[in-house]
């Protein structure tokens, strides 16, 4: 494929979202990873998104997973082990794709995504990352988008795997419902973030199931929305905890008076995660539901209920974190740097919500028709 043929349809928008998620939150918090690691991660994402060979693309996402594992190791051994296993599965998927064993490649690739997205019951690694290394979790969300893209591009076109679509859709949908229920009864802010992440991971798997019949757009948009919305939430939770320590949800927190901008941004990101109109979350949910309905109406209803429960849980968490009798705090509200980053992520969510074709149009050209020869 010549560069001229590749560039017009290249997934620049997906790359931009991934890079934004890598860099933006790190610019907002004081924790500074080495520039070399960031450069390596960015390089792997570029290779994963633009490679014309499945082996190379999967090798790139596996490398990214190993970098995340290395960064996570000091704080979360479970998370690091999960990421390492995911890397091994991705390498296996690439190798299977090269041998045209697309069913095997699909199974390995889906398992790798399930580990990275936090599908119950293999969500322990992601749960540990959410609690112990939220910034690594945030970065690995970005490279999970690349993994989803590679999956959609190289291994989900096999007619043999389309027969398993209903199974994946139903499992993902009902796992999302269970995770949304768990979110309702969390006792601290990290727990809420953990269970929200798991719920969205299950939604992503349901979307991937439906993608086997060519409906890739829902899975890609869900992955991107989850990355941006949860990325913003993770950043804000880190910012809040840096100011007031661990946040319990036992009673009204009353922090809106001291941190009004933080509260407003939290409400926006929380809303985007549950399909606030005007954000990418709304379109992603709508697209996902239409896609799921075609495979399993029961699965679609489960997802609708899951989203409703998550929305209620998000409002409860917002109320218990920020509302109530005002508690004074000597810590400042969001600093200009943090505000700029939050605004950037919100702008991306709104832009994709108002014009989702910006992301999905080029991806459509890149992913459809399936690059059978490219799997070599």
């Amino acid at each position: 494929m010549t560069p001229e043929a590749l560039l017009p349809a290249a997934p620049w928008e997906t790359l931009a979202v991934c890079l934004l998620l890598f860099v933006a939150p790190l610019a907002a918090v004081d924790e500074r990873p080495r520039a070399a690691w960031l450069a390596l991660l960015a390089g792997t994402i570029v290779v994963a998104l633009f490679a014309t060979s499945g082996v190379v693309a999967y090798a790139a996402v596996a490398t990214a997973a190993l970098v995340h594992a290395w960064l996570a190791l000091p704080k979360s051994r479970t998370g690091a082990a999960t990421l390492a296993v995911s890397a091994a599965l991705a390498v296996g998927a690439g190798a299977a794709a090269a041998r045209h064993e697309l069913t095997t490649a699909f199974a390995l690739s889906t398992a790798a995504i399930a580990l990275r997205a936090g599908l119950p019951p293999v969500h322990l690694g992601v749960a540990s990352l959410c609690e112990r290394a939220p910034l690594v979790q945030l970065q690995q969300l970005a490279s999970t988008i690349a993994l989803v893209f590679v999956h959609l591009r190289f291994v989900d076109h096999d007619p043999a795997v389309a027969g398993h679509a209903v199974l994946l859709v139903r499992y993902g949908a009902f796992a999302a419902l269970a995770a949304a229920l768990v979110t309702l009864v969390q006792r601290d802010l990290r727990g809420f973030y953990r269970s929200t992440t798991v719920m969205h991971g299950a939604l992503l798997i349901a979307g991937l199931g439906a993608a086997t019949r060519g409906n890739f757009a829902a899975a890609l948009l869900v992955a991107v929305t989850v990355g941006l919305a949860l990325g913003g939430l993770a950043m804000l939770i880190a910012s809040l905890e840096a100011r007031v320590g661990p946040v319990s949800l036992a009673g009204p927190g009353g922090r809106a008076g001291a941190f009004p901008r933080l509260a407003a941004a939290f409400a926006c990101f929380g809303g985007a995660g549950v399909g606030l109109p005007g954000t990418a979350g709304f379109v992603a949910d709508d697209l996902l539901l239409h896609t799921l309905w075609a495979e399993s109406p029961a699965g679609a209803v489960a997802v609708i209920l899951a989203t409703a429960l998550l929305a209620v849980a998000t409002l409860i968490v917002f109320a218990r974190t920020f509302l109530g009798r005002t508690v004074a705090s000597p810590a400042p509200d969001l600093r200009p740097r943090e505000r700029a980053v939050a605004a950037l992520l919100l702008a991306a969510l709104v832009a994709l919500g108002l014009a989702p074709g910006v992301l999905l149009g080029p991806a459509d050209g890149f992913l459809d028709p399936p690059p059978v020869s490219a799997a070599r």
Partner: protein
Amino acid sequence: MTDLTAAALVLTVLLPAASALVVGAWVLLGDERPSERVTRNVIGAGLAGSLLAGLVVLAGFSGLAGAPVHGDVSYGDWLRIGDFYIPAVLRLDGISVTLSLFCASLTPLVARFSRTYLHKEPGFVRFFTLLGLFATGTQLVALAGALELFFAGWELIGISSAFFIGFFHERDEPVRSSVRAFATYRLADAGLLIATVATFELLGSARFSAFQGAADLPPSEATFLALLFLLSAMGKSAQLPFSGWLPRAMEGPTPSSALFYGAVSIHAGLFLLLRAWPILEPSLAARAVGVAVGLVTAVYAAAVVRVHTDAKGALAHATLAQVGLILAEICLGWTTLALAHLVCHALLRLGQYLRAPNTIHDTHRFGHAAHAPSRLERWSPRLAARLYAAALHRLRLDDRIDAAFGPVLAAARRLDRADRWLRRTATFDGEPS
């Protein structure tokens, strides 16, 4: 004129959203919060622009300057992937123009009233930003030509409503009421979301103009769709058994109560049914359910309003009684009467709500009316006492709904315990950080 009308239609929806976005961005990015003056001017400009654009739309619809513009006005596709598409389409007909102008006129009035009412309140900026969002939601609901856009507006109304109820968030009760109202909305909205997806699958399009095709659907499918729309309307319009959130919603500021629960939001469910009438019409079962729910709600609310002791709570139930009657009218097929009833009722209630704070003053001035025993009290004091207690406790609706959701929360706690056990036993991170 067609192009001008099409442009004005979009501006009617987008101007309030843009004004809210400007204030929101200012709050997030500015070093200082916007002043009251700036806030009210920016939001006021958005609302006034929306009203002006609405008048241009009315002119285009009426054919005052050229051929009248009716039906769907398409702006292409919001999203198109293969066979699936979300159309960016607005609809011009008698119902949509009436409701759009109605909302576009009332919202600036309430904004003007609130300038004085909320002067120097800490939440002044928040109130006006939410008002901008609400105006966007109402215009989307009024003018949407397809269910996806309608649902976007519907959700914006629900979200802004929840934040208005919890406006005085330093007290616990408004916050609790806000969560309860939002939970009711979202669970009832599940019906609308399922209906949106199912309509696309069954009719091949979620445009309202495609609803005429519902006449060809098998009766079971038409009834299924109609019941979903009805469920959603019942949640938004606080019909039984979802009435518990309405008196709690009175915790919000009076201007927002007037706009939401006197004029616009409480009637949004009825508007949905008017929009979905082609689907509702052939389904006699769903219509019968709607009539029964409306009439029972009207009787219930009329009983409660007689024993309520606070002005806004009594007004809320008086509103509910009329909304129940309008629901029954729609389901009986008297849609024109229902639309007229809706608009007149909304105007009356808006004025009454805005005047509610004066009630205490009036009561002190004029005194209470002497209570004379009713016929029922004379005929059967015991039955009257029982009815009085039932009305006073509002049939313990909230307790019953809490009890119904008890098993759901118990299941959630069991799942959470299982998850904690799994994370404790199958991870190797040591003690929690």
